[in-house]
C-alpha cells in the first residue's frame, strides 16, 4: 500500500506587531517549523504502516528550498521517502493553485492508495487544501477523520466526526483523508532515524517536472483569489487600563463580577 502525506513548513511564530511610530509591520523572528496539524497526518500514516504489511509512506511538501527541513523531520519520524515541490514560479499560489501543484506532484510520482492531509495550517489557516487536492485528483475526501479502523484490499474503514456525530465509514480507495488534530498523538523523532535522515535523499520537483507547459495555471497567475490589501484592524478606544498593585486589581475584578451578579 502506498500512502502520500502532505506537509508544510510554517513560520515559527505568527507574531506581527505594528511599529507605532513608523506605522509598519514587524515580524518577531524568522524561525520556521513543521505545521503542527501535519504531525498528526504523519502519525496516522505511521500507525497504518505498523499494522499492515508493505506500506510505503511518501511525504510531499511545496515551498521554498528550505522546506526540505520538514521532509527531513518527517524522515526522523519514520517516513520512507520525500518529495519537495519547489520553484519560484509557484510563488503567490492560493489554495486552488497550491492544491493543483501538489496533486500534480502526487499523481506523477506513484498511484497512491491514500493521501493524508492535516486539517489546516497555522499560517494560511484556510483548511481547504486537503479537499481541494482530492478534487484535483478526482477522488473523494473524508473530512474530520478521527480514527483508521481497518484496511482491506480495496476499502478503508474509518471513523469521522462531523459536528457532534461520530460516523463509521467504508470508503473505496484511493481517497484523501483530512485528519483531525485529536486523531493520534504524534510521536517524537527518534535519534537513530534523525541521523539516518541526513543521508536520505529528497526528490526535488520543479515546474518542468509537472508535465504541464501552461504556466498560467500556477503561482499567482493560476490563483483565482487575489489579496487586494492587508491591513491592521482598527483598534477601538481603550477603556481605562488598570495596572500596578495586584491587590487593587483583584478587588476591581471582584467588584466587576459582583456588579454583574456573577458572585
Amino acid at each position, binding site marked *: 500500500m502506498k500512502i502520500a502525506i502532505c506537509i508544510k513548513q510554517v513560520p515559527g511564530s*505568527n507574531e506581527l506587531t505594528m511599529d507605532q511610530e513608523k506605522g509598519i509591520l514587524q515580524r518577531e523572528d524568522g524561525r520556521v517549523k513543521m505545521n503542527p496539524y501535519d504531525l498528526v497526518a504523519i502519525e496516522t500514516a505511521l500507525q497504518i504502516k505498523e499494522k499492515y504489511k508493505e506500506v510505503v509512506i511518501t511525504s510531499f511538501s511545496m515551498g521554498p528550498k528550505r522546506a526540505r527541513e520538514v521532509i527531513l523531520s518527517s524522515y526522523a519520524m519514520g517516513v520512507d521517502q520525500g518529495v519537495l515541490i519547489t520553484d519560484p514560479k509557484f510563488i503567490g499560489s492560493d*489554495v486552488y493553485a497550491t492544491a493543483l501543484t501538489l496533486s500534480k506532484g502526487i499523481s506523477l510520482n506513484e498511484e497512491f492508495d491514500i493521501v493524508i492531509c492535516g486539517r489546516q495550517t497555522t499560517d494560511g489557516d484556510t483548511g481547504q487544501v486537503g479537499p481541494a487536492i482530492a*478534487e*484535483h485528483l478526482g477522488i473523494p475526501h473524508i473530512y474530520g477523520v478521527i480514527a483508521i479502523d481497518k484496511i482491506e484490499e480495496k476499502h478503508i474503514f474509518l471513523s469521522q466526526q462531523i459536528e457532534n456525530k461520530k*460516523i463509521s465509514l467504508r*470508503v473505496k480507495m484511493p481517497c484523501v483523508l483530512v485528519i483531525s488534530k485529536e486523531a493520534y498523538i504524534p510521536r517524537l523523532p527518534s535519534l537513530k532515524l534523525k541521523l539516518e535522515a541526513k543521508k536520505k535523499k529528497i526528490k526535488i520537483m520543479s515546474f518542468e517536472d509537472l508535465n504541464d507547459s501552461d504556466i498560467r495555471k500556477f503561482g499567482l497567475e493560476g490563483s483565482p*483569489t487575489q489579496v487586494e490589501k492587508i491591513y*491592521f484592524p482598527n483598534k477601538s478606544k481603550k*477603556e481605562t487600563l488598570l495596572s500596578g498593585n495586584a491587590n487593587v486589581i483583584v478587588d476591581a475584578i471582584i467588584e466587576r463580577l459582583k456588579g454583574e451578579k456573577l458572585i
Partner: protein
Amino acid sequence: MSELQINDEKCVLCRACISACPFGALEVVDKKLVVEDNCSLCGVCLNTCQFNALCIEKQENGLLDKNKWSDILVFVEHNEGKIQPVTYELIGKALKLIEGTSYKVYCLIVGYKITELAKELSYYNVEKNFIYDHKAFKNYREDIFCNVFQDCINVLMPAIVLIGGTDVGKSIAPAVATSFHSGLTADCTELILNEKLELVQIRPAFGGNVMAQIVTPNHRPQFATVRPSIMEEANRIKSPRNNIVNCKLDEKKLVSQIEVLKEKQMETKEGIQDAKILIVAGQGFKRKEDLWMVEELAMLLNGQVASSRALVEKGWMPYERQIGLSGKTVKPEAIITCGVSGSVQFMTGMKTSKTIIAINIDSDSPIFSIAHQSIAGDIYEILPKLIHQLKEIDKLANNKN
C-alpha cells in the same frame, strides 16, 4: 509570471519591508534590495514602504463572461431535522449584499425527507429554494453532495456562493470551488459587494494579527465560507412564499464511493459555547502545570475553562476548548482572559461576550481594545490572589448559611 518588483531608484534602503516580511524573503545585497524565492507575494511589504518602491504586477484576465453569472446561492445546513442558525445568518448577509442590485438570493438544501424542513425556508425573502430530496442524501457524503452542488450551480449560475464554516461546509466548499476552477475564501468576517459587483472578502491572516481583503476577479462563482454566529440572522416574514423547487439528480451521480455504516450521536458534554462564565488561558502561561489557576478559577466561579489557539497547538488544552475562528465562537455573560494578547482570530470568536475582563502583561495588548476591564499585569501574581479572595468570599457565604 508575477513577482515582487523593486524600483531601485525609489528604494532608500530603509529596511522597513525587511523587518515586516513574514517570510524573511527580503534582504539587502550589495546595497540593493533583493527578493528571495520564498516570497509568497502576500503583499505585507507593500503597505510598509513609504516610498512606493515596491509593487506586484497582476494580470487582468478578460476571458470570463461575468455577465452570465449573477445572484447569490446559499447552502442550507441542517442537522437532526433542524435548519442550523448559520443558514439564516448567511441568508441575512446575502439579502444585505444584494440591496441596490438586481441580484436575488437562492437557497440549496440537500437531504432525505426534508420537505417539511424546507417549508421553513419559505418564510424568508428568498427567490427560490432548490430542494434535492433523496435517500442517497440521508448522510453527508462528500462525493455525491458535491455532484448536487455542481448540478445546482450549473443551472443557476450564481455569481456568489455562501457556505457556513461548519464541518460539512469546510469539506464541501473547497471541493465544489475547485471543481469550478474558482476561488474560495474561508472564514470571512465581513463581505461587501463593490461597485463592480465583485465580492470583497475580508478575513484575518497570519494567525489573525492582520486583516486580508480578498477578491476573485476572474472566476465565477465566487465562493466564501462564514463561521456560525458572525453575521446577523435574516428576518422571518409573516406569510410563507411559494418558492420551493424540487430538483432531481441523474441516477449516475448518486453513486458514492463512501458508505455510511453507523452513525452515533456523541455525548454532548456542556461545551464552552454553553457556559455562562469562561476563564481563558493564553500564551502568558509558561508551563502546562500552571493551568491549575484557570481550572480553580472556573470552579470557584461556576464557569468553564477555555483556551487560545497557542495552547491547543502546544497540546496543553483540547481543541474543543479553543476559542476563535478556527475554534468555537462564544458569547458568555462574562469572560476572563488570562495571558491572552488577542489575535483578530481569537477576538472574533468572543468579542460579543457581555463582560470582558482581560489580564495580560503587555499594556499594548490588542485584547484591551475590546475589554470592558483591561488589566496590564502578571497573571502569576494576580490569579493566585484572585483565587484566594474568591475562596474567602465562599467561606463567608458558607458561614452565613
